């Protein structure tokens, strides 16, 4: 058993996009806020902060999760992946980002990191989805700009591109 007092701050260590990182958190600090304010990884966006909008979706141990519904404490020792880890080292988009770019699947871009991280897990498990399956998979992410058509098309194109690998 390990006890962490509400009045203290503690060292947290985990892997972020393949790199070992550490930072300081009090028990109540949400993972979103830890990533953005403590680490400076501001690619993960904060929308509703109660698990509805999907903007803060990231991968923890390969699973897409709401980072606003997790505490920094809970990912101690885990593998965390965020939008910052999608492009290669030279900044070239991966297939998913490229498909969003080509399909105009974003306008303001606020929801985009959540959509991309959601699809990062989903397309691994279902590499050849139907349009209908994509709509269900994306139902947990809200976009107020695009009307979703372009996003669904981008996901479909990305899946097709990724199957060539």
């Amino acid at each position, binding site marked *: 058993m390990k006890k962490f007092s*509400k009045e203290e701050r503690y060292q947290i260590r985990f892997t972020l996009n393949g790199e070992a990182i550490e930072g300081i958190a009090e028990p109540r600090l*949400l993972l979103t806020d830890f990533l953005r304010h403590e680490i400076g990884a501001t690619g993960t966006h904060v929308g509703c902060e109660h698990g509805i909008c999907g903007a803060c979706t990231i991968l923890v141990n390969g699973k897409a999760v709401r980072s606003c519904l997790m505490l920094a404490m809970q990912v101690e020792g885990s593998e965390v992946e965020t939008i910052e880890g999608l492009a290669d080292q030279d900044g070239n988009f991966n297939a998913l980002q490229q498909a969003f770019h080509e399909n105009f699947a974003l306008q303001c871009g606020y929801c985009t990191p959540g959509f991309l991280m959601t699809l990062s897990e989903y397309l691994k498990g279902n590499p050849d989805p139907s349009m209908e399956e994509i709509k269900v998979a994306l139902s947990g992410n809200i976009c107020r700009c695009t009307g979703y058509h372009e996003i669904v098309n981008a996901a479909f194109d990305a899946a097709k591109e990724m199957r060539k690998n």
Partner: protein
Amino acid sequence: MKPPKFDYIRVETSDEAVDLLAEYGDDARILAGGQSLMPMMNMRLVRPQVLVDIAHTSDLQGISKKVKKIEIGAATTQADLGDWINLSSDLPLLASAIPSIGHFQTRNRGTVCGSLCHADPSSELPACLMLLDGEVELRSKKGARSVKADDFLIGVLTTAKRADELAVKAIYPIAQEGAKYAFTEFHHRHGDFAVVGIAGMAFNNRIRVAIGGVADRPEVREWESLEGGDIDDALNDFAWELRGSDDIHATAQHRRELVRHLGRQLIDNLHSQKNHELPQ
């Protein structure tokens, strides 16, 4: 929205969690997947002094098949159950219901026991537990007890679990040979809270349904050899007995209509299924 301050305790065994609940009682909350608790804490609807994280406990993980029942440990996520290899043969009702529980991202964290303990009247897993007459096993320092769904689910966000008790496992009976199962619900968008959710089974010329989202907990009715117009009359009676009320999502009249319409669809689906065969 940020949660208020709390002490965070990460336990390694269920005994440690039970000891902490005995010590802190009402001031403590169990954190498993956090998909209901964390939103409520972020909105400051609940303010526990102590959070007991059971996600890393060695003895609350996994799904085990026992005689005539499946036991699901308290740290087991809805995604784990959805991916379980025997799901469609042993728990076909849950195979049908799981895709309607939130979104796949929330199922990745949300636990089966957590959903039962949260006891939202529109949730899928409590309705399924009621239909199958399952149980929840509770443990405190005073001992363990298994509570039937009908006694466990009391009302809106209210269960028979005492503050010093830990829900250690959910127990769902294995599908009966020859019985047929189905789940359906109406929601405004996929993953939203269900306006009406219906779990149903057909067995020995009987029909049994559990309806969530209308009364303050899922309610069950069982009928013998219903056919044609009798089905509609029985569903209409049930719809009125549930005494639904108007709210922001639907009127009471709309909910009655959903009970009649979805109920009929579900029963027709049950009648058209071939008999469920148990694996050898």
